[in-house]
């Protein structure tokens, strides 16, 4: 049974709120025109049309997803079509695997990521990043102890590269960025994700919230 998620028909985007820069994403999603809520438990998850996993510490959040039994419901919703976007930590959490590490992941996108690939904090940087899918102007990308994509499956679309390594990818309803659009004033990546959410809702995919 489909539940109307918002009185005025706007899409409701959720931000996983176990740890990380949650309020920054909520503010950016609202600036881009969506209703946005923090997702702390399954009831919150049932309310949203799309989910962002924010920046934070991936080892911490994987443990919290397991302890509070949130991993499986997220996987079920995403496999049923709900759009998901992982930024930095979020992309690590949804990757197929983390290279050279025994770190568990949710395996929702066919990529292998390397953690802290650009270096430690002293190598964290702001970069003007060309992202053709978002238009001609480069995107002000903020990388913080960022991962890169070491391997991507054949179905994975590479949307941006830095120093020859993938830093933005999409496979169907799952989007990943190594960088943090929520820390910049440029709302284009948030708008891009909200378009994915609107399309998915239009197609009535992922609307069956009761599967969670």
């Amino acid at each position: 049974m489909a539940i109307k998620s918002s009185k005025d028909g706007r899409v409701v985007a959720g931000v996983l709120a176990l740890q990380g820069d949650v309020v920054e994403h909520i503010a950016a999603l609202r600036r881009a025109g969506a209703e946005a809520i923090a997702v702390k438990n399954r009831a919150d998850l049932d309310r949203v049309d799309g989910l962002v996993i924010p920046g934070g510490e991936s080892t911490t959040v994987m443990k919290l997803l397991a302890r509070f039994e949130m991993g499986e419901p997220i996987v079920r919703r995403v496999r049923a079509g709900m759009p998901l976007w992982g930024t930095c930590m979020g992309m690590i959490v949804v990757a197929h695997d983390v290279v050279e590490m025994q770190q568990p992941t949710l395996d929702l996108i066919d990529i292998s990521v390397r953690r802290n690939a650009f270096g430690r904090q002293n190598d964290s940087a702001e970069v003007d990043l060309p992202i053709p899918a978002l238009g001609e102007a480069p995107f002000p990308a903020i990388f913080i102890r960022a991962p890169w994509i070491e391997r991507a499956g054949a179905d994975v679309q590479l949307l941006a590269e830095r120093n020859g390594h993938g830093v933005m990818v999409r496979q169907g309803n799952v989007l990943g960025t190594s960088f943090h659009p929520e820390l910049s004033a440029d709302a284009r990546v948030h708008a891009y994700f909200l378009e994915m959410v609107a399309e998915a809702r239009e197609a009535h995919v992922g609307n069956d919230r009761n599967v969670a």
Partner: protein
Amino acid sequence: MADTTQTGTVTVKRGLAQMLKGGVIMDVVTPEQAVTAQEAGAVAVMALERIPADIRAMGGVARMSNLELVQSIMDAVTIPVMAKVRIGHFAEAQALQELGVDFIDESEVLTPADDKYHVNKHNFTTPFVCGARDLGEASRRVAEGAAMIRSKGEAGSGNIVEAVRHIRAIKDAIKELTVVPEEELVARARDLGAPLELVKEIAKNGKLPVVLFCAGGVSTPADAALMMQLGAEGIFVGSGIFKSNNPKAFAKAIVDATTHFDDPKVIVEASRSLGKEALAMEGIDLRKLSESEMLSPRGN
């Protein structure tokens, strides 16, 4: 295309602190403790030779930790590693930056090196966190370039009362700034000893421009939940974990309570997970300490 890469910007320095929000940063003195902290779900560790409770007990001059030890902790975990320098000791800070730690804590827990001035933190690529007892201290540290503030509390005391006093002082003063008439802000900036532009920014946004954590006295899951509900954006636990009788259990329980600080059910589960034999660190009645034994007044 020209390389536009910029490191050490205000945005990436404050940004790392933003990524730590909602998390627990744990003091550790060995690589093994660092792994225990990471396994429990810590978002970062503070690499130290001695935890504050032992610094307090042993006395003497407390300095930046042995760099071999800091490096061995950096090698042991994948989460960010912080380390402390003495207040005003910019050469210790240069060494830690060169070593490559992720965050530098200019800390009152160590013996101050400069009784007048803090480090000019704008000169560094590595971000700094500093302690504060009130909004004046917090804004002066931000003006000096701190990318993160932690309320000081009283480190190594196992007593939450100072932490509560400091976070309330900071939050209340911010709230007050948001409602005072604009013409009062110049005088407020004078009273706070902080730049007017920063005071205007705080008044307009109703928050500091950097992340605010809490430190100094958290010893139980309920302590962590209390501080989060009072407005801390995350928790530093110093002696509270490795001075308890079951560090693994305390570390995990404090992480859980920080995540779900507003859900008493989780606080009950986290507290009960410690078991019947659980003993939090022994605390100190701060009224029995003399002024010279208090750490928080250092570096104002």
